[in-house]
């Protein structure tokens, strides 16, 4: 089966799934917070692509191109942007205070229970 036979919606969907997978991998395996934030954005981009594929299929109201997912994607992008901004701001502050950009060292300092 050639790539062309897949159709644009499926292609978008597969790309989205691949991006989501890459993003998830980065988020879970990397301890660097900046990398994780980037990973989140890749994961988000993948999900938005899936949404786009959904819109292209027009499953919803039976229109040729469903407008609702597009509205959702735009909202989602705004939310993702805010999340990134908040995370970067917190990370910047953490870096200013400690000079670290990972969390794992913080676990050593996290209040220990009595043993």
């Amino acid at each position, binding site marked *: 089966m050639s790539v062309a036979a897949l159709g644009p919606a499926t292609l978008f969907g597969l790309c989205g799934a691949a991006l989501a997978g890459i993003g998830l991998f980065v988020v879970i395996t990397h301890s660097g917070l900046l990398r994780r934030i980037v990973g989140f954005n890749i994961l988000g981009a993948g999900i938005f692509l899936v949404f786009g594929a959904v819109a292209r299929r027009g499953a919803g109201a039976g229109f040729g191109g469903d407008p609702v997912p597009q509205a959702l994607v735009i909202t989602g992008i705004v939310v993702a942007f805010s999340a990134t901004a908040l995370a970067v701001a917190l990370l910047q502050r953490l870096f200013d205070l400690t000079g670290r950009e990972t969390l*794992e060292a913080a*676990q050593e300092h996290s209040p220990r*229970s009595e043993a």
Partner: protein
Amino acid sequence: MNAAGLLLAAAILVPLIMAAACMSPGIRRHAPLLLAFAPIPALIAALFSPEGSFVLFPAPFRMTLLLDRPGAILLGGAALLWSAAGAFAAAYMGRKPATIRFAIWWLLTLAGSLGVFVVGDVVSFYLVYTLASLAAYGLIVHEQTASAHRAGVVYVVLALFSEAFLLLAFVMLAASHPDANPLIRDVVATLPASLLRNGIAALLILGFGLKMGLVPLHIWLPLAHPAAPMPASSVLSGVVVKAGVIGLIRFLPFEAGLPIWGSVLIAVGVVTAYYGVAIGVTQTRAKTILAYSTVSQMGLLAVLLGVGLDNADPAGTMFVAYYAVHHTLVKGALFLAVGILAATGGARLRPALLLTAILALSLGGMPLTSGALAKLATKPLLGYGILGDVMSLAGAGSTLLMLHFIVTVARDARQNPDMSAPPGQVLPWLVVAAASLIIPWSLYPAIAGESVQGLFQVEALWKLLWPMAVGWLAMLIVSRLPGLRGAVPEGDIVVLAKAGGAALDRLLLGVQQADAALRRWPVAGLGLLIIAALLAGTLMLGA
């Protein structure tokens, strides 16, 4: 709500209102003076409320109070002891700031422990039972010594276990009932037919047995009762343990009987009765000896309950209540006596010791005392087979333990300077001591169904005297055994907990390490994905 009902309600509410009133500084200052008066409504209710009085609190409070014969007998004895011990406490505790706290815990425990005798529905029973259990912690740790603290911790842990067992038992009992909060007697009537009856009976005996101190669930009792201040020990050992007795009276199906569990209770009771004596004679502190005596006596009560359950004999509960009220008053008076004797010396020591000795030997069944009446009244229930003899021999054990107690207090008081206990302490003690004689005598004809003349026959006296003689002989032997005193630590098998403690520590450490591992980011992230996959699997299973 009629006058009798109001009295019943007041029995629980007056102490609670007094406890609440202690929030006001003006009343708080005089809190110790309230203690003697708080149980008065209960006492009046026990004396004058007709049998079968019934009160239903309106929704949303869902509380039903009712008074039956065993409940009234126990309520009366308990209220009397609470009142006298309250007066004793006011004189004994002094006017320290800590006394106010003591008074508040006292009032709460009082409300709960009197409540269990009159509450008629399942949820309210659990409520007052819990109140009595948890508030007693405040009395036990009052002196804030290391040993009191240890006793308090052991007590609370076991009390929570008791609560958990009972909650499950009550829920299982009520589960099949259409009403969410049924009357106790209604659910107990359905118990013998219930599929869960063995589980329920086991949980009830575990839960209430813990409260009564049946071996091996007794470990908290010899720690907790001596740790409390004198008047608190008196009510803890006299009244609060009876919450377990009334619980078994109320919740076990004596109408229909449960022979297997009756036998279990008898077996546990016999072991407890002898075990309490055996460990008690090795003890060196007067209060601890009394606590072990309580353990032993609760064993006797368990035997009586077991026989009643075995024979499907609802009248058995009357005998249990009668025996229990005797123990309430005598044991209460004995704990107060320890306080009196510690503050008495010189010429007044001898009469005080004499009265203490009479009270103590009453537990062993000395003729003419309440103990003799209780033993004779319950004799027909036990029958004249081997069980009757076993119990008579347990009476001999009680005599032995009480002789050991008398020797111990007499030795402790020998060095006292010439002084006398304040009248505020002596008077309540005398009242309880007198009541311990009068009340059982006045109730005897109604309970035993025969006049008191029968008590003076040679046969009846012989029944009482041979166990006493055996007890004296045993004392002669025991007192010559070297190294017996102090051979067993207070709380005996609680030391075994240390061995289990190490294993528990390892388990807890394992939990902590697992927590640290699970809370690492990659592990949690992977966990999230695994959970998502498993969820998808379960959702597809159903589709």
